[in-house]
């Protein structure tokens, strides 16, 4: 009914004081499926999500979410979306069931229906056994599931999840991923932010890479990875001469260089044939490379490849207490 895009943003700009957090974000998120905003701390992911969810106003630019304008039709947008922020958005002193009933009643369900909806969601998110316990006693994973359950008490068309897996152990992260996949398969559009390439890769049909308040790349994970190179061949050189020779021979193909440790990295698909060919190419005499290692591309690699520079340091993240504080 409302076209094929769930989120359409053009030229979103936002400054907090003298700090320019967003410098013109353009996004087009197709309806259905999972869309990831991938970027380091301080890239502007949270600010973008807050603007799209009508919790903050952009200084410039426009955005249409679930068919409604975030500035002019705020109430309408709010009725069609829901948001789970990075920060605890449930009451710790209340039980899981109380939190969901409260949210359901705020979403417009009458008391009886709210109770039913809460019970349903508790079961669905495997929190039935903990329903009567205070949230303060929940583990990080349970809390996140409750957060997301609270997000679904209405019937949102678009769900925003801001760094849903931050602080979770690997098992809880898996469970969370299952939940997100299930959500998307139910027809909801999920827009999530993440710092992890792997997470975007696992979940998202499309993703946008954000850095320094701009979208630096947008596409499917396969597309993006093809540009970045799925994996890295990490080489350690015998001495400084060998290092200098190799670096000048490779030029821009050396996606990462470290003269101090005399290491160089090349993009590879990780297959034996490709790795063997690369080794033969860079070290035909079989004496210069002392060690090699194949590892996955990291977020840093994506940035190096896409922007030619490492991710912008989040030095300005303190601009607002909401703006993605640096985690230890």
């Amino acid at each position, binding site marked *: 009914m409302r076209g094929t895009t769930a989120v359409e943003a053009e030229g979103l700009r936002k400054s907090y004081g003298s700090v320019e957090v967003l410098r013109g974000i353009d996004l087009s998120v197709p309806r259905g499926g999972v869309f990831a905003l991938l970027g380091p701390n301080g890239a502007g992911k949270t600010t973008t999500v807050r603007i799209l969810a009508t*919790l903050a106003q952009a200084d410039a630019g426009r955005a249409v979410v679930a068919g409604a304008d975030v500035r002019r039709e705020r109430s309408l947008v709010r009725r069609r979306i829901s948001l789970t922020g990075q920060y605890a958005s449930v009451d710790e002193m209340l039980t899981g069931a*109380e939190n969901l009933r409260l949210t359901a009643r705020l979403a417009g369900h009458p008391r009886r229906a709210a109770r039913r909806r809460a019970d349903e969601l508790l079961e669905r998110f495997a929190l039935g056994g903990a329903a009567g316990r205070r949230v303060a006693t929940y583990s990080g994973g349970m809390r996140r599931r409750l957060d997301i359950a609270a997000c679904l008490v209405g019937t949102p068309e678009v769900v925003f999840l801001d760094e849903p897996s931050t602080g979770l152990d690997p098992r809880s992260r898996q469970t969370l991923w299952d939940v997100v996949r299930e959500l998307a398969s139910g027809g909801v559009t999920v827009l999530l932010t993440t710092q992890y390439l792997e997470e975007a890769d696992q979940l998202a049909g499309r993703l946008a890479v954000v850095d320094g308040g701009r979208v630096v790349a947008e596409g499917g994970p396969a597309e993006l990875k093809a540009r970045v190179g799925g994996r890295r061949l990490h080489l350690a050189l015998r001495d400084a001469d060998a290092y200098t020779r190799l670096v000048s021979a490779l030029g821009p193909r050396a996606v990462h260089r470290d003269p101090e440790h005399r290491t160089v990295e090349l993009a590879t698909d990780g297959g034996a044939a490709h790795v063997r060919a690369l080794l033969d190419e860079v070290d035909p005499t079989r004496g210069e490379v002392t060690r090699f290692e194949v590892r996955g591309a990291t977020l840093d690699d994506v940035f190096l490849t896409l922007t030619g520079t490492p991710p912008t340091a989040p030095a300005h993240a303190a601009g607002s207490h909401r703006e993605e504080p640096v985690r230890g």
Partner: protein
Amino acid sequence: MAEFAPARGAGHALTMVDRSLRLSARNVDAVLVSLVLPVMLMLVFVYFFGGAIDTGASHGDYVTYVAPGVLILCAGYGASMTAVSVTRDMAEGVIDRFRSLDVGGTAVLTGHVVASTVRNLAATAAVLAVALAIGFRPTADPARWLAALGVLLAYVVALAWLAAVVGLLAHSAEAAGGFTFFILFLPYPSSAFVPIDTMPGWLHGFAEHQPVTPVIESMRALLLDRPVGDALWPALAWSAGLTALALPLCALAFRRRTA
């Protein structure tokens, strides 16, 4: 498709009242502190200082003189708890959830203010019970009792809205707690604990005209079955005026905080 907006707002406010009441009930230690401290102060005043304080023969026992003042002190503790809980809500992700559910500031703050008032009524009952047990002997009929409680209630509601403003402006629970000092100090330079004419002359002007004195004098007169005189209208005017001041400030501060 749009529901009637005021009805929706009222529904939100009711739900938020329910939430704040539940949270208060879970936060038993804070409620106890806001209750035990005034009671202790009353005992200190009555038994340690009371013997040395001469409030004039017309007041009877010191406990009878001081009980209304302790109720006002209690209201101060209650208000500072409200300021802290508003600040906490604004600092956490909870407020984002409410806003993304299109719950307005009015509903959120109404929840806090109503819960604050209910907490205060409970504390008032407890303080009165202790006061009665140690010799407080009000002589009022039920109508005057109700009037006295009404005066107190108006003051409590005014303080709660002021506390909400402070809670919205403060960026940490500690800062919001600083509100405690100001509100708890106010009863001292008033007729709450000692008659004003025992204070130095330069203090009389402030002590007589600050909000606490007319509220306390009205309650005293109502409870002890004496003519209320000209204390009642200033008391109600102060409470109404403070509330009328706090409401637009709340709206402004909420908008500024969530911009």
